[in-house]
Structures are given as C-alpha cells and as structure tokens.
C-alpha cells in the first residue's frame, strides 16, 4: 500500500520556451561556424583577394578590410576565437571559483572571513582593469593571457555564487543525513553538493561566457586584447572604427556577430535555468 501521491503538476517552467530555443539556435550556429572554420573558410584569412575596403558583394558577403581580406572569413574565425575566449575563461573561472567557493562554504567563521575579504578584493578589482594589468605587463599580449586574466576576474563571481549555493545545500537535512550515514566531507561534496549546485552554476557559466566575450572585445578596443593575427571581433570592431565612415559595414558586421552570440548565451542561460534549476521544481 502506498500513500496517495499528490499529482504533481509537471512544473510549468520545464517547457522549452521559444526564447530558449532561439538562444540555443544562436549559440549552436556560432559553435557550428567556429568548428567549420577549423576545416574550411570561404577564403584564406590571410589572402588579400579583394580591393581595399570593398563593400559587401556576392563574392565578399561582408566586404573586405584594409588589406583586401575577406571580412566574412574573419568574422567566422572570430566566432572560433570568441568561443575559445569564453570557454577558456569559464574553465579557469570554474576551476578557481568553485574550489574557493566550496572552501569558503565549509570554512569556519574566521577562515571564511579571510576568504570573504579576498573575494571582495577580487570583485573590487574590476575585471577589465585586472585583465589589462596582466596583459599589459605580460610578456607580449596574446590570446592566452587575455583569457587567463578574464578567467581570474570572473572566478571571484563564481566563487561567491558557489559559496552561497553550497551554504544553502549544506543547510539541508540530507546533508545531516549523509553525515549520520558516515559520508566524508569529500563524499558530501562529490555526491550532494556539486550535483545540486551544478545546474545553477552552469547557468551562471553561460552568462560569464557572454561577459568574457564582451570583456575581450573591450580589451581589444583599448588595444589590450587578443593581438593580431587573431581576428577577434573586438579587434575587428576596433580596426573598423577608423574606417567607419568609408566602410560602415565593417563596423556593423562583427558587432552583429558579437551581440548575437551574447544574446544567444543569455537566452540560453535563462532557459536553462528554468529547465535545470531543481529549486524551481518544487512549488
């Protein structure tokens, strides 16, 4: 005999919203393009095939740059770089942030205060400034240092979030039950804490991904981002600034690519939150 199960309504939010589908499609498109550039691009990115600053045409969908290279090719490669920046930065942020956040969540009050102070500083060191510092002082700007800097800066936010989420999980009775069952702290982290905070973290990672792409663009604008010949969108935008009156399309097209990826990520994240957040399953 069993108790009458209250017919739990399938949580309304589990439906895939149109916004989520749009987001997933945009992100998917960028990923596909990024992968495609590994094996094929319309032109050799270094080949100076068109005239200087040619307007969009059938041959060059987004026109050409000052060296007569195909802009569409560069924008496609930009997708790959954006994805590299985003995933690299998020991976770094996740590795550092989740570890520190978990330590802080478990830490005693005194240790926690020190960690909290450290996190405060990391948050107070504005992401971009920190990145600039490292890139500017580093041994030659390259994509790697930019990614590292952005990742470290983002790790503060991830750590803070992890700490809050983990604390919430640690207050649950099932953690007490696990302790009573003899599960070690490491086991508790692995079996209970991580799986429960993961969905929310993933959502945050998607947002951080977008922020990293924007941060890279801003760094490039300040001349501190991914150096050439990396065709990062930020650098394309920065270069196009000088020619914005003669070849406005060069300033618009990379911008559209960037905005569409970031919006895609945000929509995707919002949708993911509704699908994945376990706290939304219970009313």
């Amino acid at each position: 005999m069993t108790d009458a199960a209250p017919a739990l309504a399938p949580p309304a939010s589990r439906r895939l919203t149109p916004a989520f589908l749009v987001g997933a499609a945009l992100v998917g498109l960028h990923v596909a393009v990024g992968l495609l550039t590994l094996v094929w691009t319309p032109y050799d990115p270094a080949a100076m095939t068109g005239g200087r600053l040619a307007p969009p045409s059938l041959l060059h969908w987004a026109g050409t740059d000052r060296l007569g290279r195909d802009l569409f090719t560069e924008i496609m490669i930009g997708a790959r770089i954006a994805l590299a920046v985003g995933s690299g930065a998020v991976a770094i942020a996740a590795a550092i942030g989740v570890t520190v956040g978990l330590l802080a969540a478990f830490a005693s009050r005194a240790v926690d205060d020190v960690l909290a102070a450290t996190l405060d500083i990391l948050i107070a060191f504005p992401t971009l400034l920190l990145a600039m510092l490292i890139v500017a002082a580093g041994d030659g700007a390259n994509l790697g240092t930019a990614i590292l800097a952005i990742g470290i800066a983002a790790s503060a936010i991830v750590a803070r979030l992890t700490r809050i989420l983990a604390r919430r999980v640690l207050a649950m009775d099932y953690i007490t039950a696990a302790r009573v069952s003899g599960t070690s702290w490491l086991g508790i982290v692995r079996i209970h804490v991580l799986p429960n905070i993961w969905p929310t973290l993933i959502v945050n990672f998607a947002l951080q991904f977008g922020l990293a792409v924007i941060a890279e663009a801003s760094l490039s604008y300040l001349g501190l981002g991914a150096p050439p010949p990396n065709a990062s969108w930020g650098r394309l935008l920065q270069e196009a600034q000088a020619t914005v009156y003669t070849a406005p399309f060069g300033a618009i097209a990379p911008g559209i690519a960037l905005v569409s990826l970031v919006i895609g990520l945000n929509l995707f994240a919002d949708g993911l939150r509704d699908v994945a957040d376990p706290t939304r399953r219970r009313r």
Partner: protein
Amino acid sequence: MLAYVVRRTAILLVSVLIAAAVLFLLLRLLPGDPANALVSVGADADQIEAARRQVGSDLPIAAQFVRYLGQLGRFDLGASFVSGVPVLEEIGRRLTLTLPLTALAFLSAVLLALPLGILAAVKRDRWYGGLISIVSQFGVAVPVFWIGILLVTAFAVKLRLFPSSGFPPSGWRDPLTALHQLALPILTIALVMSASLIRYVRSATLDVIGSDYLRTARALGAGYGEALVRHGIRNGAVPVISILGIELASTLLGAVVVERVFSLPGLGSMLLSGIEQRDYPSVQGVLFVSTLLVLLVGFAADLTQRLVDPRLRGPSGARS
C-alpha cells in the same frame, strides 16, 4: 549591529592591505621596466642606467616594497615617474571628473532601471513588459564602447546636440556646461548598466509578487499597486542593493572605456597612459584608489542591506 560593523570594518581593512600588496607584486613580478618610459631611441646604456636609478627599478623588489609600504602608511602614493607629479594629487584632480561621471551614471541607471524593471515584472504578460525584457537583453550583450560610438555618431556628429568629446577646463565651476559635456558619457554608462539592473530588479520584483506577505496584504484589503509599493520596494531592494555594490565595480570599469571613447581626462585615461608608460606609481595609485572605492561601496552596500533588512542585524545574522 555594532559588532557587525566592527567585524565588517576589520574585513575592509584586511582587504585594503591585501589589495595593496597584490597590486604591488603583480606590477613588479611581471616584465617591463618603468625606466623605458624616460628614454627614447638614441639613448645609450649610461642614460638607461640613470633612468633606472631615477625610478628606483634598480633596487631589489623587497626594498621597493618596503619603500612602498612606508609611503602608503603616510597616505602617500608616490610621484609619477614620468611627470613627477604626486600621484595622490593627480588622482584627486581626476576624481573630480570620474567620480561625478560614475555617480551620475549610476544614479541615472538606477532611476531608469527601477521603474522599467518593476514594469517588466508586473506587466510581463503585456507586450511592453516583454519588450523591456528583450531590450534589456540587448543592452547586456552590447559592449560599452559600441554604444558610446553609436551615441556620438547620432547625437554629436549628426544632430549636433551634444559635444562629441572632452571636458571643459573650467570643470564644475560651470555645472551646466560640464553636465552638457558629460551627457553622452553618462548616458552611455547608464544605458549599459541599467540593462543588467533591469534584469535584477525584474527578478526581485517577481519574487515579491509571488510572496506570501503580498498575498496577505491583498487579502486584508490592500490594492495590488498599494501592496506592491508598501511591501515590495523594501523587500525588492534587499537583493538589488547587494548587486548594486558589484555593479558599481563594473561601472567604474565602464568609465575607463567611456573615458577613452570620449577623450575624458579622468582616472581611466590616467590608468591607460600609466600602463602604457609603465608608470608604476600612477597605475598602482589608480588601481588602489578604484579598488578602495569599490570596497567602500561594497561596505556601504552591506551596511545598508543590514539597515533595510532587520533579519541580517542580529548577532547570529550570518552573512549570506
């Protein structure tokens, strides 16, 4: 509360110290010689050595650090290697631009985001509620400098409504001119910032809308709007305040980029040229002061949050 203020202040002080040390080490441990800024093509080895002596980059790092700590203890940020001007003095001068710029942008963003965010939550089923959400999505996705360039092109170059760049040398002695000059930079930061704020305000409002106390108020006769105003604003403010602290950090950052777009003589341009020149005292000073500002704002946000939310006040009120 008092105990909390004491503890929080202690954390603040520790943070400031760590920040100072980290800044110093980051700058010194990475390659680059500030002496290079003082020499030009044609200089010989003796001249380069002289430049190193002048800026102190010939000393061991430990000695430089001790000197730096000694200076900090005297509230002295040193003098710029390239201009010789005391950094604190220069920062003070630049802050008269950056601080109002950030504060006004911040204020405009909040004033813009509050009504729009609440509207987006309350009227989420209407077309305009949805529109606000979508537009704020765009705002979050667009880099600051792009918006800045767009605004300049439209309002300065095409419509000639505002100046395209710069800040009057008379500063704030003529506040109207100064404001007119800063209108576009303020708008640029405010737009970007309000986009993300709108999203936070919206979700805080949604939490309030779904709350039991709102239902209680309505059940006892309060109209929807009245209940929302009376109970929603403060309750919604609690999560938003803590976000504001973090957002301000990114506003300061936006200010750096915006100062570049609009050629404004603020803290950001001081930092950028300092980085270019490896002018350690300047870079260190600017980063230290901006970190301090954000820490102070975080401090203020935490205290405000406790003032608004009595639940956080008790002795056992653990930080969230």
